[in-house]
């Protein structure tokens, strides 16, 4: 059985608990154990980098060092947490003096960063570590006819990764196809949802969300699939505000990709946290259930 140190991040504790439950349940189906990272702390989000980058690195390094202690690679379902931990590891490996200083701080918690634990985004675990064939093998109720807009957002792919063309990603589409759904040609799939601007610069963020919803609706999507709690909240929970602000009439369900995989695996919607949406996902569930294989 494959095992990872699971870093839920602050959002998954409550706001995105459906992502948490659906991740655990789908991974269990695939014989992967997510062992929660012992006494994890916040990744620092974007705010820490506004104030002190060394402090931001320290927060992430503490989590990485803890994963090393558990002798496991870390997996993060949130793109923001993932990017912070991934780039912290890269910076510390690149700059020994920096790593030395951060380790001096971590000594106070009996931890040490060496870089031995890799950082993975949850979607990478599905696509690369487990593989599409293994995912396909567990599908009992393929989501035939469901038109899904696979929304990558930003920080799974960016900043630049050396071995990857970040503008040409196609694995999200492939994953959705593997569970029987029809991935639509979602032109804005790599564009930003506005992230924390939804709080700090509301109007700007709402206009970005509107563009995404507009594009997804135009290509006939029935649901947007996300891989990040911030994207999910912006696209779904603020959809009503978008409608108020721009006089639009969007009613687009936004689910985590793990919830869609769970439905295809035949897991009960409730176990996947479906039912806590502000934009009902009933239509998606009906479609998934109407055509059992």
């Amino acid at each position, binding site marked *: 059985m494959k095992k990872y140190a699971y870093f839920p991040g602050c959002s998954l504790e*409550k706001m995105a608990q459906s992502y948490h439950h659906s991740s655990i349940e789908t991974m269990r189906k695939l014989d992967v154990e997510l062992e929660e990272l012992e006494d*994890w702390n916040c990744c620092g989000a974007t705010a820490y980098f506004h104030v002190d980058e060394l402090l931001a690195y320290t927060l992430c390094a503490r989590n990485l060092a803890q994963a090393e202690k558990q002798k496991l690679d870390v997996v993060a379902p949130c793109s923001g947490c993932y990017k912070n931990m991934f780039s912290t590891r890269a910076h510390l490996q*690149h700059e020994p003096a920096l790593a030395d200083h951060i380790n001096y701080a971590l000594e106070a918690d009996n931890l040490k960063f060496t870089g031995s634990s890799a950082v993975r985004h949850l979607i990478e675990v599905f696509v690369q570590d487990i593989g599409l064939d293994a995912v396909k093998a567990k599908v009992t109720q393929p989501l035939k006819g469901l038109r899904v807009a696979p929304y990558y957002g930003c920080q799974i792919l960016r900043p630049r990764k050396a071995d990857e063309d970040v503008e040409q990603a196609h694995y999200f589409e492939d994953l959705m196809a593997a569970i029987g759904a029809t991935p639509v040609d979602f032109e804005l799939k790599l564009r930003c949802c506005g992230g*924390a601007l939804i709080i*700090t610069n509301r109007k700007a963020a709402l206009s970005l969300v509107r563009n995404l919803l507009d594009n997804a609706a135009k290509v006939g999507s029935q649901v947007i699939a996300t891989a990040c709690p911030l994207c999910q909240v912006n696209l779904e929970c603020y959809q009503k*505000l978008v409608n108020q602000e721009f006089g639009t009439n969007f009613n687009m369900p936004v689910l985590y990709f793990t919830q869609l995989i769970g439905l295809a695996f035949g897991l009960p919607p409730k176990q996947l946290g479906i039912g806590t949406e502000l934009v009902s996902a009933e239509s998606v569930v009906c479609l998934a259930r109407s055509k059992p294989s």
Partner: protein
Amino acid sequence: MADKPTFREEIAGVLHASTGNPLDVCMQCGTCSATCPVASGGFMDNSPRRIIAMINAGLKERVLKSNTYWYCASCYHCTVRCPRGIDIAELMYGLKRYTVWHAKTQEGMIGPVFSETFVKMIVRTGRSYEPVLATSYLFTLGVPEMIQEAQTATSLMLKGRLPLLPARIKRLDNFKKVLKRIIPLGDPDE
């Protein structure tokens, strides 16, 4: 003996010391501004391309008065597309730090207040807690926005998606000692 730095060198000094982030190689092609979803929406008073030009021209006061970097959502699309290899998103972080440290943040901007509240909260508990974040900036919003926010929060609460109590990490004392070794200042408990 180093000469007195230009504004460009000052800003370059705030960025990654090891990898460097050479702003002087910018050729003003505008790929960053065209890529930026916030700039192309017309929300920034100066586009990323313009900000770099202003830094290179030494227009310090105007750069520090600009809202550009507080409107950056850190999506890194500009960074991966820059043909000259400038890490523009990191530059925005650097400008935020510069203004925070030099107490040059502008009145009425929620960005700096939000960052400060967020950072403070994690220093104290190790984790973030949405309701505290919400109240910190609520008063800086206008009345319609405040009502919108309350509506969204209520809907989320009804669906069980907002936490009632903040989470704390277990080894909080050690955690604070760790942070104090990086920033040797005061006591986070005071």
